[in-house]
C-alpha cells in the first residue's frame, strides 16, 4: 500500500504534474512578455536531454557529496509528496506529528542544494550555497510561524488529517482573517523556497552564473531540475491542504481542486514576473521584519479565535 503511494502518487503523479506546472509557469511568463513561449513538452525534453548528457565531476570536488546531493533533495521531495497525497486521499493514513516531518523534509531540498554547492569546489557555487543558507535562515522563521495558524485553529492538532477534517466541517481556514494573513506569508515563503525571482538570490544568473548548480551537468542537473519542478507542485499542494481544505477528486470538485492549485500557481508566476531580484540583506530584512510581523499577528489572531 505504502509502496503504491510512494511510486504512483509520490513520484510519478507529482513529477508529471510538476512538469506540467513548470510548463504553465514558462508559458505564462512568455505571454506576460508578449512572447510565444516553449511547446508543451519542453520540460520533458529538457529533463530527458540532461539525463542523456555527459556527467562531469570536477577534480577538486568531494565526489561522494557531489553525486549524493541531488538524490538527497529529490528523495526528500518524493517523501513529502507521498505524505501529502496519502493524507489527502485517505484521512486514516495520518499519524501524529506528520506536519513536523513535512516541515523538516521541506528544508532538505535547500540543504541538498547547499551541499552540492559546497561540495563542487567552485567559488561561485560556494557563494551561492552560502546565500542559500542565509535565505533558508530568513524564511524558515515566518514559515513555521504561519504553519502554526492552522495547527492552532484545528484545536492544537499536529495531524494533517485533523486539519483536513476540521476544514471539511467548518470551512476553509483561508476564509478567516488569520488564515488569509498566514496564507500571504506562506506564499512569500514558498516563493523563496522555490528560488523564484524576487528571491532567486542563490542562483542569480547575472552575478554568480548559476550559483550552487554551476558545476552540475548531465544527470545531476536533471535530478535537481526535476526536484524543483516537483516542488513547484508539492509546496502549493501543502498550502492547499493547510488552508484551502485539500484537493478532492469526485465529480465536479475536480474542477474546484484544479482551480485552487492554478490560482496559487498564477500568483507565484505573477510575483516572479513583476519583481526584480533582491539583495540577500534586503531579503533577510524583508523576511525577519514585515513578514515575520504579519505571521506573528496571524498567530495572535488565531489564538483569539478570529
Amino acid at each position, binding site marked *: 500500500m505504502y509502496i503504491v503511494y510512494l511510486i504512483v502518487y509520490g513520484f510519478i503523479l507529482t513529477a508529471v504534474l510538476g512538469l506540467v506546472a513548470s510548463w504553465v509557469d514558462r508559458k505564462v511568463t512568455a505571454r506576460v512578455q508578449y512572447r510565444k513561449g516553449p*511547446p508543451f513538452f519542453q520540460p520533458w525534453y529538457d529533463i530527458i536531454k540532461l539525463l542523456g548528457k555527459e556527467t562531469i565531476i570536477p577534480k577538486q570536488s568531494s565526489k561522494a557529496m557531489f553525486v549524493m546531493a541531488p538524490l538527497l533533495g529529490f528523495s526528500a521531495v518524493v517523501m513529502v509528496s507521498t505524505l501529502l497525497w496519502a493524507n489527502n486521499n485517505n484521512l486514516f493514513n495520518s499519524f501524529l506529528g506528520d506536519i513536523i516531518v513535512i516541515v523538516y523534509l521541506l528544508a532538505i531540498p535547500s540543504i541538498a542544494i547547499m551541499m552540492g554547492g559546497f561540495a563542487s569546489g567552485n567559488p561561485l557555487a560556494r557563494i551561492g550555497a552560502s546565500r542559500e543558507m542565509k535565505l533558508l535562515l530568513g524564511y524558515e522563521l515566518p514559515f513555521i510561524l504561519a504553519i502554526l495558524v492552522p495547527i492552532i485553529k484545528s484545536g492544537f492538532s499536529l495531524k494533517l488529517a485533523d486539519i483536513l477534517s476540521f476544514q471539511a466541517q467548518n470551512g476553509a481556514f483561508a476564509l478567516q482573517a488569520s488564515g488569509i494573513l498566514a496564507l500571504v506569508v506562506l506564499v512569500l515563503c514558498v516563493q523563496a523556497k522555490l528560488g523564484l525571482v524576487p528571491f532567486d538570490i542563490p542562483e542569480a544568473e547575472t552575478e554568480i552564473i548559476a550559483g550552487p548548480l554551476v558545476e552540475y551537468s548531465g544527470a545531476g*542537473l536533471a535530478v535537481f531540475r526535476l526536484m524543483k519542478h516537483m516542488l513547484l507542485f508539492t509546496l502549493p499542494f501543502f498550502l492547499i491542504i493547510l488552508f484551502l481544505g485539500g484537493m478532492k477528486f469526485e465529480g465536479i470538485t475536480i474542477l474546484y481542486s484544479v482551480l485552487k492549485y492554478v490560482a496559487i500557481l498564477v500568483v507565484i508566476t505573477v510575483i516572479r514576473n513583476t519583481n526584480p531580484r533582491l539583495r540577500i540583506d534586503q531579503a533577510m530584512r524583508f523576511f525577519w521584519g514585515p513578514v515575520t510581523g504579519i505571521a506573528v499577528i496571524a498567530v495572535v489572531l488565531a489564538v483569539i479565535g478570529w
Partner: protein
Amino acid sequence: MSLKLRALLKSPWVFHLATGSCNNCDIEVLDCLTPRFDIERFGMLLAPSIKHADILLVTGSCNRKSAIRLERLYKQAPQPCLVVAIGECSMSRGMFIHSYNCPLPLDKIVPVSAYIPGCPPKPEAIIAGAVTLIQTIKGTL
C-alpha cells in the same frame, strides 16, 4: 532517431562566448533572446554555465589570449556539444585577418558545426542558422 537525440534537438541550450569581437555580434545574439525573436520557441535557453550548455556560440576573432580560453572551455563542455561560429570575425577573422593578434581562425582551434555569416548577422540569420543546423543533424541520422 533515438529519444536522447530528439530531446537534445528539442532543447539546445546555448552558451555565448565572445573571443574579442567588436561587440556587435554579441548584441545580435542577445537580440535573439528578446521577446521579438524569442528563441525559447525552439526550446533554446541561454545557459548560465558551460556545464549546462549544448551549443557554444562563438563570436569574435579568437585573439591570442582568448584562443587558449576557448580551447579550455570547449574541453569543459559536456559532450555532445556543438560549436556555432557567428559573424565574419569568427569564420575567417574578417577585417582582422592580417592582424598580428589573430593567428588562427576559429575552426582550426575547435571543430565548428555551423557558420553564420554577416558583419554582424541579423537575428533572423542566427535563428535560421540554428534551425538549419538542427535539421541537418536530423537529416543525417
